[in-house]
């Protein structure tokens, strides 16, 4: 055998084993680790050649040589690297398993119950064509890579988010979930959170967020007594006469109040202090040696505090004072303050 005949044999043998590099206007130039194993028909097209090539280009994965188009679905079902969906999805091999050879194409888009594909055919048009079919035409389903399809196109999902809100996502035509939408219908707060605010002049109150993301009611307005820099209470004047005027600032229901810290006690005669807080230092009722001050042409006021200047019940103390005033006929009762069991008298 001479060299020419050897070359001819080699070329003949090699060419039969090699893949077709180009079919119609499409070249087998995508990188997927293999070459296209299908023949090309004389019209410059072949559905199997084109579908294999489209998958190679889109998936970077060489499909097995599954034979005639009507065998692709069955072969894919037997191969765990692939899945066959009964609903149309984009980026899939659309398969028709009816007819003598069947038909395969590569799905570009899905719209309702129609699919638009790129395809070639062994007859008719030259090269690649774009065509829209009813999805049902592809009776063998749609071949995808295992795990490629997450959901049924058109499906939706929702989940809770934020403060009792919800967000949703939809399944795209490619069978994959889209991104989550914005969080809507949220409540006013996060469950368990606390809103604390100042109230009054010295208090604070708080409210908690309920499980349904709405605020509960505010607690009572309360606060701590103010203190000086040294940590002691802040002194104030209660407005009560005598020793009882001494007080300390406290916070009651959120408001500052001067709370009396010295209670009235028995008058100590001669100490120069209004111990019984009747407004008179060493007054005549408690200290008889001291005459009651008489104001010229005016009035003098006598305040009797129950339990201090007169023994017995405050009511009877008041009655005693009234009797005394009437006997002297020098005073007239102007008012009786039963709260403090005191009597104010005006001299007549």
């Amino acid at each position: 055998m001479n060299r020419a005949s050897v070359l001819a044999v080699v070329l003949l043998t090699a060419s039969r084993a090699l893949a077709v590099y180009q079919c119609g206007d499409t070249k087998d130039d995508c990188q997927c680790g293999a070459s296209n194993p299908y023949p090309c028909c004389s019209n410059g097209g072949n559905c199997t050649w084109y579908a294999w090539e489209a998958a190679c280009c889109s998936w970077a994965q060489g499909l097995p040589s599954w034979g005639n188009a009507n065998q692709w679905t069955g072969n894919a079902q037997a191969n765990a690297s692939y899945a066959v969906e009964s609903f149309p999805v984009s980026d899939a091999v659309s398969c028709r398993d009816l007819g003598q050879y069947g038909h395969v194409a590569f799905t570009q888009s899905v719209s309702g119950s129609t699919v638009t594909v790129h395809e070639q055919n062994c007859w008719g048009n030259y090269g690649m064509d774009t065509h829209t079919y009813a999805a049902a035409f592809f009776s063998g389903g749609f071949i995808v890579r295992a795990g490629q399809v997450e959901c049924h196109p058109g499906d939706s999902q929702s989940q809770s988010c934020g403060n009792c809100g919800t967000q949703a996502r939809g399944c795209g035509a490619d069978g994959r979930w889209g991104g989550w939408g914005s969080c809507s219908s949220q409540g006013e707060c996060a469950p368990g959170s606390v809103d604390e605010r100042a109230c009054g002049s010295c208090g604070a109150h708080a409210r908690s967020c309920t499980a349904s993301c709405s605020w509960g009611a505010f607690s009572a307005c309360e606060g701590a007594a103010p203190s000086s820099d040294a940590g002691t209470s802040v002194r104030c004047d209660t407005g009560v006469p005598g020793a009882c005027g001494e007080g300390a600032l406290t916070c009651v229901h959120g408001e500052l109040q001067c709370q009396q810290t010295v209670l009235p006690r028995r008058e100590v005669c001669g100490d120069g202090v209004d111990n019984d807080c009747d407004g008179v230092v060493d007054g005549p009722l408690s200290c008889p040696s001291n005459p009651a001050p008489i104001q010229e042409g005016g009035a003098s006021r006598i305040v009797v505090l129950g339990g201090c200047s007169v023994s017995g019940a405050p009511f009877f103390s008041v009655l005693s004072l009234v009797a005394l005033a009437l006997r002297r006929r020098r005073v007239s009762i102007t008012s009786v303050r039963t709260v403090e069991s005191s009597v104010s008298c005006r001299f007549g």
Partner: protein
Amino acid sequence: MPVATLVALILAGGGGSADLNRWDGVSLRRHEDAAAKVAFPVPLTQTVLTARHFPGAREGQMKHVFTLTGPTVEEVELGLFSNPKSRSLEAWVTATLPFLRASANASMPWQATVKRVPALVIEQPRSPQQYGQRVAIFRLGETVVVVSCRNVESPRAVSEFEAIVAGLEVLP
């Protein structure tokens, strides 16, 4: 491109020195796969062997897939299916790969593996859409083996197919 390469190699190889890397259809090596527990011959050169294992494969899906790819295209596929219901070959094919029963295909008995177990060989003729394919199916215990020659017009593919069908062994 491979054709051009071959031409260049032949034209440059006037001295008669043999290309040791060239596929000769005879030189084989034995490939053992521990996961699938099988061994089979593969060409010594110019063949890429890819093994894929699917432990979670459903019934009717290949649990182990071996692909032999030549310089350009896939030439042979070896698939191992489980057959838990111990179906006969005919029943298994009808249930699992019914499309092989197409009227245009021809079936014939064969013998496979080193133990010469009964096999079913199905010939799929060339069509406008595909090169002719040949599929051998046989049982090894509860495993069904399917060996597919992807192009009966390719001497390489046929040679590899026949070597695997005849030389397949089950590992202990």
